[in-house]
């Protein structure tokens, strides 16, 4: 199996005044199509790990390979291209744009691919059908429930069918029923590689592989194909 994501000896230390070591010497290989839950206490380095996997941050040491390509020498436009074409993000706070309709929020996920507006809307419509929100396309985010908003955010992340989906506490702001629905949705994305951060044991159990971080190191890795 090819590695969708690969970290080798990755460390991240934030510069002064904080001077916090968020990750140290992390080796991690995520194969294509794998679903991975990352757990750990607050401050264990989960979000930093996700940011580095998503090229939103550069490590202070080590290498990050995405679909086999080393990202350490990439320029800002090249990293932006990786995010635009290969990675979808889902956040705890949804980050929907209030002034746009649900359809346009999802279509915004493809705007930095240089795709024409009509094609973006077609992709967005299909993505919204996949998450069961075909009847909410003309609504504004403020008119939706929390669960629906997170489904819009997932539709935005998967509208361009990225190889990798990174989710940072996607169920953190939702009740149990809605949380379960989101997890079911993420687990059903087929060949998409999913890495999600969670505090919730039930959510972690729904993923094929579970990694636990402690003080910036992987202390437990279970259920993986390797």
């Amino acid at each position, binding site marked *: 199996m090819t590695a969708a994501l690969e970290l080798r000896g990755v460390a991240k230390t934030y510069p002064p005044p904080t001077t916090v070591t968020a990750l140290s010497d992390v080796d991690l290989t995520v194969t294509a199509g794998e679903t991975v839950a990352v757990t750990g206490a607050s401050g264990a380095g989960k*979000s*930093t790990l996700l*940011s580095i996997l*998503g090229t*939103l*941050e550069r490590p202070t040491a080590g290498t990050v390979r*995405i*679909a086999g*390509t080393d990202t350490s020498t990439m320029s*800002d*436009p*090249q990293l*932006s*291209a*990786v*995010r*635009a*074409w*290969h990675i979808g*993000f889902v*956040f705890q*706070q949804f*980050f929907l*744009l*209030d*002034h*746009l309709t649900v359809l346009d929020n999802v279509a*915004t*996920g493809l*705007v*930095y*691919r*240089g795709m*024409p*507006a009509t094609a973006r809307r077609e992709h967005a419509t299909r993505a919204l059908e996949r998450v069961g929100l075909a009847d909410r396309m003309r609504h504004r985010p403020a008119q939706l429930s929390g669960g629906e908003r997170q489904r819009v955010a997932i539709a*935005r992340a998967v509208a361009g069918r990225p190889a990798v989906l990174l989710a940072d506490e996607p169920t953190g702001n939702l009740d149990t029923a809605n949380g379960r629905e989101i997890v079911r949705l993420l687990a059903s994305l087929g060949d998409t590689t999913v890495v999600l951060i969670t505090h919730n044991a039930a959510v972690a159990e729904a993923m094929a592989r579970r990694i636990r971080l402690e003080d910036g190191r992987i202390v437990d890795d279970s259920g993986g194909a390797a």
Partner: protein
Amino acid sequence: MSLRSRLRAADAVSIGTAGIRARRTRSILSALGIAIAIAALVAVQGVAESSKRQLLDELGRQGNLLTVATGQTFDGRPTPLPLTAQAMIARIPPVLATTAVGNIDGATVRRTDRIPPQNTNGIIVLAAQPSLPATLSARMLRGSYLGAVAEQYPETVLGYSAARSLGIDRLDAQTQVFIAGRYFTVIGVLDRVDVAPEIDTAALVSFGVADRWFGLGGVPTRIYLRVHPDRVAAVAAVLGPTAYPENPRNVQVQRPSDLIVARLQAKNAFVGLFLALGAIALLIAGVGIANIMVISVLERRAEIGLRRALGARRRDVAAQFLLESALLAVVGGLAGLGLGCLATLVAARLAGNPTAIPPKTLLAGLAAALLVGTLAGLYPAARAARLPPADALRTL
């Protein structure tokens, strides 16, 4: 991985305007600053240009008017020109028309004989010819000009300021003034004559009356002449010897339109000052936009983080805020142009001037708004672009 991150121009504009549309009140208030400054700049230029246009029109009409006079005596009275002067000047080929006035020394003009003779109001008495209104392009404000009757009988026409000083604002058969011991019927009042201010403060009588009662003897003290517009300088050069062959150096030749040129220059000086004030207003409006944009960047950290996560390059984020700032200023600038034109129109109408707004001013106003908006957006845009995406997403 040869795929590129790319933002279409139409999408960049749409994203740039989205921020403006999402915060309407704030956008309108920020644009208002620019609108007021641009309106002020356009109105200053427009109002000045309109009144300049009026002066230039006047200059065009009056540029071919020359006056010939001699020096003054020690007590300030004009010395007379030779009797033949007017006839000689009229024979110079490019001279189109002439008219002469003769100063009647020591004559006072009063409303009645009860007014003490010392209260002269600065009004002088001039003998004038029937050709005066045509030669000076002078218009009658009220009544009519001196005609054949005035050659025989005591009739007078008052200059604009003289009529005001005497408190004469309407005419009837009984309207009389007391000139040098005799009542004269006021038959007309002249409108202001910009190129011959001495006419404004004078009471005009006919040469016939002046000869009979004041012993003027037909002697002119000043001759006005209209010349072919292309030959003004040539005629001016020969006027001295023609008017007073025995003593040409004693003759003063003037071009009254020089007064208009001086007024034009004075106006330009004021325009410079007001334009500087307008530019300061524009600068302040620009600082206002920069301030609002910095606040906007702080408020929209999450959006910036999200866009970076979706694949926006630093330059895309910078373009978004730069475009937003420039668009705000351009919208304000367009509103300002409209307001400025309206203000110019109203001001010109009130002053009775023709409306003149140079297209250059409109283009410059729009360009200035765009420049200020772009400069105001540079720092906020750079700040937004430099924001590390992971930090921006950790905002909440």
